[in-house]
């Protein structure tokens, strides 16, 4: 065939290659990411690298040094059983991290699955969304407490309870994205190509929901750390003697006036942890939204912070 077409007027010039690259590039350059990453490294050094060097067992009880204030032997002091608070706080950090990660990942997977089904298939939409409405009608912390109370308080059960509490939000979010993307022209184009529903859903709709999911997962991570601490503080979370930031606080509240270090150190740890995760969440969100300016960032963060700390 003899084609003398005006050959695609612009030549192929090298350019910022693709969206993924641009995204990670922008993500890594966000101030929120840099602050978050710095804090995260400090936290990890403090709570994971240093403890083995100091070498205290978070479980070993020494009644002779009950409730001793911070010193060089016990950096954060000791608790009411004479256990080293530094290693217990760090143990709590690890437990919180584990819970946060498991809850974020599980509820992301489950929520995406449910949301995708509900958004794509009208028939299951009503059923799934009514169940989600039902779950969301309860205050999260109350529902989580009830679940842990009925399942028994253990690490796994706390994770299960938190997943049940936090999944509906993700499902709802993904559903709304799927509903919107489903109507896009390129989906109709795929359908006109003869693509199956499964292919359209998996290859064309879900990848386009990834950005909102990523942001939400970061906030869920922070949320579950807070809720777990609250649960443990109320005595419905991770059961002692396993350290958790919440149950250290619970033990500390009785002796708060005489030995405030039992409350101060775990609280600081909790605050910094949640801050780090929120910084990462903000960085993802900003990197995905090229229009996000600095000014709007501070405004939005303020409301996020207030929201994070007040809903627990």
């Amino acid at each position, binding site marked *: 065939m003899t084609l003398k077409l005006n050959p695609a*007027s612009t030549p192929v010039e090298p350019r910022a290659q693709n969206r993924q690259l641009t995204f990670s590039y922008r993500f890594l350059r966000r101030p929120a990411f840099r602050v978050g990453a710095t804090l995260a490294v400090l936290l990890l050094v403090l709570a994971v690298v240093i403890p083995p060097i100091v070498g205290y067992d978070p479980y070993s009880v020494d009644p002779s040094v009950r409730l001793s204030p911070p010193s060089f032997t016990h950096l954060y002091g000791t608790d009411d059983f004479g256990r080293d608070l530094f290693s217990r706080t760090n143990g709590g950090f690890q437990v919180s991290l584990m819970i946060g990660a498991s809850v974020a990942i599980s509820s992301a997977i489950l929520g995406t699955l449910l949301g995708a089904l509900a958004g794509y298939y009208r028939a299951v939409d009503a059923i799934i969304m009514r169940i989600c409405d039902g779950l969301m009608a309860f205050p999260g912390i109350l529902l989580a407490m009830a679940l842990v109370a009925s399942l028994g308080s253990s690490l796994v059960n706390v994770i299960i309870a938190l997943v049940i509490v936090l999944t509906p939000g993700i499902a709802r979010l993904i559903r709304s994205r799927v509903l919107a993307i489903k109507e896009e022209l390129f989906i109709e184009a795929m359908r006109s190509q003869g693509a199956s529903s499964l292919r359209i859903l998996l290859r064309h709709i879900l990848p386009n929901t990834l950005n909102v999911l990523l942001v939400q997962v970061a906030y869920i991570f922070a949320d579950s750390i807070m809720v777990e601490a609250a649960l443990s503080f109320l005595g419905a979370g991770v059961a002692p003697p396993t350290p958790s930031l919440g149950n250290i606080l619970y033990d500390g509240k009785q002796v708060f006036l005489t030995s405030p270090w039992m409350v101060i150190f775990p609280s600081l740890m909790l605050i910094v942890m949640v801050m780090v995760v929120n910084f990462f969440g903000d960085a993802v969100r900003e990197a995905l939204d090229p229009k996000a300016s600095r000014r709007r960032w501070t405004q939005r963060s303020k409301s996020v912070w207030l929201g994070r700390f007040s809903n627990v």
Partner: protein
Amino acid sequence: MNRSKAGPLLDVKDLVKVYGSRRSGRQNGYVAVDTVSFDIERGRTFGLVGESGSGKSTIGRAVLRLIELTSGEVRINGTNIGRLSTRELRRARQEMQMVFQDPYSSLNPRVRVGSTIREAMRICGKTRTSGHNGELNELLLKVGLTPEFANRYPHELSGGQLQRIAIARAMSVSPSLVVLDEPTSALDVSVQKGILKLLTDIQIEHNVSYLFISHDIAVVRAMSDVIGVMKAGKLVETGAAEQVLDNPQHEYTKELLTAVPKLPGESAALAFSAPE
């Protein structure tokens, strides 16, 4: 590839599409397409003109059964696509492809354009393993691009380039009918010409039929063998292109033709001749 059966390639009979009414036959829906019949011969172009909202695009979508018909039937190669099961329909859709008006939103923004085309080939089972890259490159060259474009994302291409990709995607499965839903109306005039030329060349080489939908009479004239004029869901006039445009019978067609803006000193704005 040419399953030559007697009769036209596409046969649309008494097509009716009512929006907003349930199957129970409530009469209060909006009638988008009202008993439209036409057919398209193999290798020919049927141009559908009409103002916005006259039901042109609805017909285009109905032909591919992207929307369900209220009544009437669409036959391609003698097969009534309204009766096919979902699976059969998916197979049948490879015989008919579509190119949309807006090239920016008809491609998945997260998929490289090469993968988009390759996926179209894979869906119809055309690619096994070997040689599909060669085929892809060939397609890209055919639509006036270069193989390097395969690694680009849609947002890195211009409207005209994207529309070429969309055409390559449609042609990748060797369809016998392509529905062109205002393929050039989102593009500027110079790019438009290139695209129309490309479509004409492809038609000559592959003997593919086009259902060419447009509100631009000049473009339709340049492309079509047969023209149908739509007004408020009805096909008011059908006939050979020259006949309809030079000697319109229906009032509305005349109105449409006089509505074409003319430049001072130009005898008629219909001077847009077939692209060389």
